[in-house]
């Protein structure tokens, strides 16, 4: 029974990977060229920045960067909360 489950799971994953590999786009082809072309052609005029990556990170997709900053903030708060207990035990 266990062997049959493992074998069927293996078959399922293998079939999924083979199908995904067969339908993959050519190597190096962009996922959505329309979006890329828009960013590359309009970043200098709209955001007036030479660095298109920074203009995406801080302007077009600024909300994602806010989430990233929140992740870092919560990580720092977690570390400080963890180690503050250590320091207060000593006093």
């Amino acid at each position, binding site marked *: 029974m266990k062997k049959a489950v493992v074998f069927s799971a293996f078959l399922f994953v293998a079939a999924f990977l083979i199908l995904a590999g067969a339908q993959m786009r050519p190597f190096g082809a962009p996922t959505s060229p329309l979006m890329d072309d828009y960013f590359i052609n309009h970043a200098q005029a709209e955001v007036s920045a030479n660095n298109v990556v920074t203009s995406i990170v801080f302007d077009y997709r600024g909300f994602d960067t806010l989430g990233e900053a929140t992740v870092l903030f919560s990580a720092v708060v977690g570390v400080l909360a963890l180690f503050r207990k250590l*320091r207060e035990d000593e006093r």
Partner: protein
Amino acid sequence: MNGEMSVIVRTITRFVYGLIVVFGFYVIMHGHLTPGGGFQGGAVVATAFALLIVAFGAAGLKGKLNDHLLQSLEEVGALAFLVLGFIGIGTAFFYNIIANSGAVFGSPTPIGPNPGFLNTGGTLPWMNWAVGLKVMTGLASVVLVMLVGAREEEET
């Protein structure tokens, strides 16, 4: 000894520390022109703090690196980033209202290949500075607090 490393490491640290800080601030300042930005430059500056803490030990820096000041500066950076996101709220959240307006960092970029001008980018350089301040002080306070905590754990 109280946790500081050998005289070789401390001497090299005195030479390299300033260079790392200057390079990190360069990466933050030119975030809208060259590869890098606030996160990367802030991480570079934080490695300089980490180098100081490792080389001189937490006890040797007790009066110089104030972790309460570092944590306050981190919150200042986070709040500045939020405020910069909100100043364009009239159009959309995170709308770049300073770009092409003529204010500080507001002059337009020439279209096409150009050497890059510092006074462009709108809110991007401001956000780079806010995020850079946040990342450098946040990572530095994490390293400082963890090292101090580990030392005290060792002693007890």
